[in-house]
Every structure is written in C-alpha cells, then in structure tokens.
C-alpha cells in the first residue's frame, strides 16, 4: 500500500506533503423498539492529501484514485494562494521520522464474531427495557468501525495503524399520558468485544431511571450549588475546558488566547486536568495521530494553573510549544484537526458522602445529555438528578440543563472526589465526529451553576 501512496506523493511539487489512505469498515445494527430497522456491513475508502507550499498549508479529500493528480494540483494551487495572501508563512513543527505498523491487541476480536451473534446480543439487551409497560420506545444500535490507516509523508514517515471501535448505544423512552422522558445508554471501547458482555444490570438500571423520571419534578430555573457525577463532570472537562486546550480553537480567538497562556491561574487549587490517549484499554487510545505523530500524555491544568495544550504540527510551531500528537480525522473524508484523546479531571481524596455533606443544600445531577461550547460559555444537559437537602439525596428532578462561564466555573469547583471513572462511549462533533472521544472525572462539587429549567 505504501508503495502506491509513494507513487502518488512523488508527483507533489511542495515543501512538505503527506497522504493518508483509509479503508473503513462499518458493521451496523439498529433496533427501533422490537423492530430491526437496519443491519449490514460495508466497506468504503478514500484519500486525503495535504500540501505545504510557499507558506500555505491546505488539504484535498478525494475518493477515486484517478482524481489523485487533480487533487494534488488543486492542493498546490490553494496552498500557493494561501501563501501569497497571508502575512506570516505557515510552518510545521519538526517531528521524528517514524516507520511503524501498529495493530492493537483485542480481547475478543469483534471482526471474528458473526453478525447474527451481535444481533442476538443487542436484542437481548433491548428486551430488558421493552419488557416494561411504561417504556414506549427504544432506539438501540450496535456499531463496529474499523479504520485501516496508511500514512506517508514526504519526510519519510510511513505508518500503518488500525483502530477498531465497538459499541452499543441508544435511548430508552418512557411515556405516561403526554409526558415523554428519555435516558441514554452506552457501552463499548477500543480493545475488543468483551466490553459489550454482561450489561444486563446496566440496562435494568437505566430502565428504572427512565420510568422514575415520569414521576420526577421539573427543576426550577435558577442558580444552585451542584454535585456533578462522573459522566457529567467528564463532559464538563471535555466541553467547557477541553475545547480550549485545543490550540486551533484558542488560536482563532485572540482574547481567549491571552487568557489561556501557559502559567496562568485559571482554576481552583483542587483542579487538575489531563489528556492521556496513551492509557491502554480506554476508548480514547491510539498510538499515532493522522499527521504521523506519536501521541503523548499532556498535563493540561495542575492545581488550577494552565500547564499544557493539545497541538497539531502547525499550531505547535505557531505557539512555540511542544508537539502532542492530537491531530486526528474522523475518516478519509477529512483532513485532521486537533482533538482530545482521553481527557479527565484528576481524582482527589473526597468520597461522595463527604461531597454531599459539604454541599448541604443543592442538586446532585447525573449523566450527560449533550453539550456545547461557544467561547468561554458552555451549555449541557443532565439526564436526571436529585434535590439535596441537608447533605441527603431527596426527590428526583428532571429537565436539567446547565449553562456557565468557563473561567468562573473553573474557580467555582470547590471539591473533587476520589472516584475517577472514564467514559465508554464518546462522540464529539467539532466539525467532524470523533467516536473515540473519551472523557471522565470523579464526582465534583461546583458552586453557582445556572440551571435553565423549562
């Protein structure tokens, strides 16, 4: 394969060029309620060429090998146009030349399990919520994505890495009269099919929550002190803080870049945040990014002080900071952009009970339901929660959406628990979807959280 790519790349008239060819295999099963609505397996492939020429850096994605010359020509023209237009020529950080093949070790290779077995397992789990009369609908899917990636650069790097991601995920909807409630469920990972075994308990637990939600009270809009559970605190680490550790985002926002200088005190003393995609057996694991750079652990925040950032080769040079290996694409349709790998809040000493006692009165809110950031502001939903009175869990609440300001919230995190948990399903939609986006945290206590209510 690398030989074929070399033949394409050697025609490039550029200061630097790379090409990535990917074969992507998808296996998908979807159940809507009892009904199977989609099942199959399929293979697609395509190329991305990147060119650095005369100080301009650009990319072209294409699917037909016969378009390779056209793609090269377009990329060269666009690079020259950028180079002629911008004042400061683009440079990319120097990196070691790598020649490597990395095929991950899997516990139970999902590719060796017949699709019939996958379907029967999905049906088994799906039947758990459906056996309850108050459950109106389920949408459950099995997915298996294999990315077989070949990367070649004009500097001599040649990498072949495979990424195999499996998961079961979906939603459970309950209904009582006109009231509709839903919760999400997800499991999976990067290291084999075993992550999808023995999930009955989890499905039973989620079913109970969605039924209980029919009797929960809508939360009243206002400002509360809150404990966020691990899933929700992980989304905070990802949405509110993590995206501003991505150099391509802060680069475009000068006022934000000024605040996000390495060494600035941004958060409370109890808060440390790390990205570590080298952690084995986690959803976020990979060895090389889509620029052919080995990923490394990055200490992003230590005791509230900004200590690191996630980079591509271009931004590492622009910021004059160390390369980190975080430039990742969804698949062959896209040039890579900076993405988090496995981001998490570092655990401290406190138990959940101690956090509850510290909270006294407020809310205990759990599990994410989508989030979004816009500059220093963020919004995300919680699937359910409880009022906390006098340090004790009280009535269940629903319709919880929180909003906040990154800097205020980083300072308002007053206590961090000892029970770190990393997510099993990801999905981040920064222009492209990253199904390997992994985040986690222990329980955290946050003051003055704005809740939208309904």
């Amino acid at each position, binding site marked *: 394969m690398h030989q074929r790519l070399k033949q394409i790349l050697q025609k490039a008239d550029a200061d630097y060029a790379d090409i990535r060819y990917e074969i992507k295999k*998808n296996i998908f099963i979807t159940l*809507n309620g009892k*009904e199977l609505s*989609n*099942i*199959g*397996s*399929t*293979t*697609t*492939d395509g190329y991305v060429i990147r060119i650095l020429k005369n100080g301009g850096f650009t*990319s*072209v*994605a*294409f*699917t037909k090998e016969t378009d390779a010359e056209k*793609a090269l020509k*377009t990329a060269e*023209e*666009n690079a020259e*146009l*950028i180079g002629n*237009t911008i004042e400061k020529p683009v440079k990319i950080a120097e990196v070691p030349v790598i020649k490597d093949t990395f095929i991950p070790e899997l516990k139970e290779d999902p590719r060796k399990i017949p*699709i019939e077995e996958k*379907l029967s397992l999905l049906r088994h789990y799906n039947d758990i919520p459906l056996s309850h009369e108050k459950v*109106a*609908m389920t949408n459950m899917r099995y997915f298996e994505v294999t990315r077989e990636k070949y990367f070649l650069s004009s500097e001599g790097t040649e990498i072949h890495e495979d990424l195999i991601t499996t998961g079961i995920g979906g939603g459970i909807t309950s*209904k009582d009269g*006109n*009231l*509709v*409630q839903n919760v999400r469920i997800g499991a999976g990972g990067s290291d084999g099919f075993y992550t999808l075994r023995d999930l009955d308990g989890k499905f039973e637990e989620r079913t109970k929550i969605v039924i209980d939600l029919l009797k929960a009270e809508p939360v009243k809009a*206002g400002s509360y002190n809150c404990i966020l559970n691990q899933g929700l605190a992980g989304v905070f680490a990802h949405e509110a803080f993590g995206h501003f550790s991505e150099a391509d985002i802060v680069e*475009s*926002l*000068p006022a934000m870049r000024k*605040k996000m200088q390495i060494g600035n005190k941004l958060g409370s003393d109890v808060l440390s945040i790390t990205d570590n995609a080298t952690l084995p057996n986690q959803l976020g694991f990979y060895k090389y990014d889509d620029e052919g750079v080995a990923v490394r652990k990055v200490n992003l925040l230590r005791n509230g002080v900004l200590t690191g950032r996630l980079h591509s080769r271009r931004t590492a040079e622009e910021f004059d900071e160390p390369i980190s290996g975080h430039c990742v694409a969804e698949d062959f*349709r896209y040039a890579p952009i900076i993405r988090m790998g496995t981001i998490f809040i570092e655990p401290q000493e406190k138990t959940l009970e101690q956090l509850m006692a510290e909270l006294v009165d407020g809310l205990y809110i759990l599990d994410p*339901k*989508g*989030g*979004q*950031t*816009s*500059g*220093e*502001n963020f*919004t*995300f*939903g919680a699937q359910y929660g409880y009022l906390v009175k006098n340090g004790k869990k009280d009535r269940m609440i*629903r*319709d919880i*959406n929180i*909003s906040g300001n990154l800097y*205020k919230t980083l300072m308002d995190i007053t206590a961090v628990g000892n029970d770190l948990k990393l997510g099993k399903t990801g999905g981040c*939609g920064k222009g492209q979807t990253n199904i390997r986006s992994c985040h986690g945290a222990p329980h955290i206590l946050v003051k003055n959280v*704005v809740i*939208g*209510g*309904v």
Partner: protein
Amino acid sequence: MEKLLEMAKKVCDQAEIYYNEPNSSEVLFQKGELHDIESQFQSGIALRIIKDGKLGFSYTKNLIDREEFLQNALDSLKGGVKAGYSFPLTKELPQFNTYDPHVEKVTSVEMVDHCQGMADVIMEETDAELEIAGYKETRTIRIMNTNGTDLQNISGSNGYWVNLIYPGGGAGLSRIFEEKKPFTVSKKDIAELIELYNSSSKVIDITSDKMQVLFMPGCMYTFLWRLLSGTSAKSIFENISPIKEDIGKKIMSDMISFYDDPHDDSVPGARSFDDEGVRTRKFSIIEKGVLKNFFYDLNYAKKLNAESTGHGYRSSMWGGDPITMTPTPSLRHPRIEIGDKSFEELVSMMDTGIILDGAMGAHSGNIPNGDYSVGVSPGLYVENGEIIGRVKDVMVAGNVYDTLKKVIAVENKLHTCWGGRMPAILCENISVSSK
C-alpha cells in the same frame, strides 16, 4: 450503474441505486485573515434491495467490484429487516432551475478576495474576532430503481458565512448568505450586521424572570428539531409524539404556519423528488396554528397505512454522508410563514427582553417532549424598544408547543439559516434564567 441494476434485478424482487457526488471548496478566514482552503471530490453509491419482503443494503465509495457490492446487500438480507413497501415509478416531474454552471467556475481567488473585502470593512468598524467562510458546492444525485424510475438532480450553491465574535465571549453574531449562482454579499447586509454588533457590545447583568424573547432565524433549529420530532411519521409510529392525536386541532398561535417547500427554486437545493424517488410537493404541516399533517417516507407510510409524502431523505440531525444512511422521514426545505413586521418593528415592539440570535445546547434536553433549554449565544438585551447591550451566562427555556402559543408577531422576511429558511418570531412570557 445500469449494469449493477441489471445484475440486482436477476437475484432480488426490487432494487434501488442512489448515487451522490458532491464537489466542494471552502475558504476560511480567522481573525480577518485567510486561514485555510479545503476541497473535496467525493462520490458514492448506495444500494437497497428487497427480496421476499426483506431489505438489503450496502454502500461504497468506489464501485470497483459490482458482484461483491451486490453480495454485501444480499448478505444483509439475512438480518431480516422488513420492507413492506415498493420502490416507486416516478416520471414526468416538474423541472426546476437548480444549477447555474457559473458556480463551478467560481475560483478560490474570487472567494478569498470577497471575504477579504468584507473582513476589511468589518475589522475597520468593529472590535469583533471575525470568522468568515466562503464556499461553493455542486452536487449530483441520481436515483434508479427496477420499477423504471431514473431521476437526476444537479444543484449548485455559493455561500458566505460571517461570524462577528464578541472578544473573549466566544459567542458571535452570525449570518448565512447563500444563492444558487455566484454572488457577493451586499454592503447593506454587512452594514446592518456591523450596526447590530456595535449596538450590543456592552455586557448587561439581568436577574432571572419571564420576559419577551425574539427568536432569531439563527436559533430557529432549536424549534425545528422539536417540531420535526413531533410531526415525523417515525415518532407517530413509535408513539412518542406528544401531538399524535392532534390532527385538526389548534396547537399553537394562528400566526404560525409551518410547511415544507421543496419546489422553491429561488434558493439552492430545490427538489422534485426525495431520496427514494418519490415526487415532492409543497406540504403544509401546521396552518395558522392548526396541525394539518405528519410527514412520511415509504417505510413509515407502509407501517401506518398511509402514502409517502415525499419526505424520505438520507440524513440525520447531524448531517453525515448520505450514502451511509437509509432514508427516514425528514424535511429538507422547512419554512415558517412570514408575518407582517420588519426586524426593526419587532425590536421596537419589545419592552424588556432578549433577542436570542444563536442558541447553545439545542440538542440537549427532552426533544420528543418539545422541551428546550438553551444558552444565549449570543443574547442581545432590549429595553423600551432599543438594543442596549447583551447578556452572558443566561439560559432561555420552555416547551416549543407552549412557546409558540405566546407569539406576539412574526418577521416579514425569510432568512437562510441552519436547517431551513425562517423569519424571526417574537414571543412573550418566556423563562430566562441568570446567575
């Protein structure tokens, strides 16, 4: 493709081929300076087959081996996905003017020059952290099936997206300008955006209250997702729509009419057929507040003993590659009927309230139930009919079926926005929460 269809015909009862070829270029400006240019030449084919009432499906980017491709679809029959419907025979469709060949000739240099021109003006007159994107796209779609349908649509668009970000906040005032032929954004449109930005630069603290909210086109997808969930045949079949039993009933203000207009070829993307080859038409969903229709694709029409309304599209809430998806009920050309007030008149009608120019977190919350709870991104603050600044860390929340009962007035103009073409809608007594 013809050969593939012939091969499929021999081994199954019905077959359908969907071909999609998008070609695009985008230039991106950050901080008022050219940042990136990206191009894509993509194509792909999806195959659906029906045999003994079961559905088979496969897709590929490169049709190298027809036999293997067909075999993938045949293999997926084993799963047993039911298909009680037939692919349609559709012929003699109205012709729309969807493609201007000049779009393909728009060069990156021309788009860069125009973006630079806009950037120079905006940077001169504001302190915004400016993002601009210019793009052109042509797309060919072809649908063939074994019942004799062979339809093709070529469409083109040229567009600019301008986002004036308030320094530090990240929230920005953004607008989409899009046409099916090459064009430049008018100086008047840019001047209006600059004026709106400069009038809202001051940050104002407010307390939580119920107040008037002017929902702008840029946040309208918050309502759209909930209305689509409520009126899709899929939700009706799954029994999760709160308005399932409400056909013929008045469910919102008589100022709200919600419809699909695939035949409007004054804007890009008009379609005479959906992604299943079913004929489309202008289609009313809510008329003067009364729920008129749900929308169907072939699959859910069959399940609900109805006819497809021409709404089978290969798309999802998040976009995605059409060939990788099977059709589901979806609206591609949603509109809300315009009212009789200009934007300036709507603002002058407000006593105290928020102009919700963009929403954050529209995908969170209980979408089937119609609930929304979004961060302002940004939210402009109005007092006594005048914009006096903007609010931060504020959420606007409600239920779409309740909010759209509280309409005071609707704007007299449609704007291209994420998801469709919409006017601004002024509502009263909406929950706004703050620290």
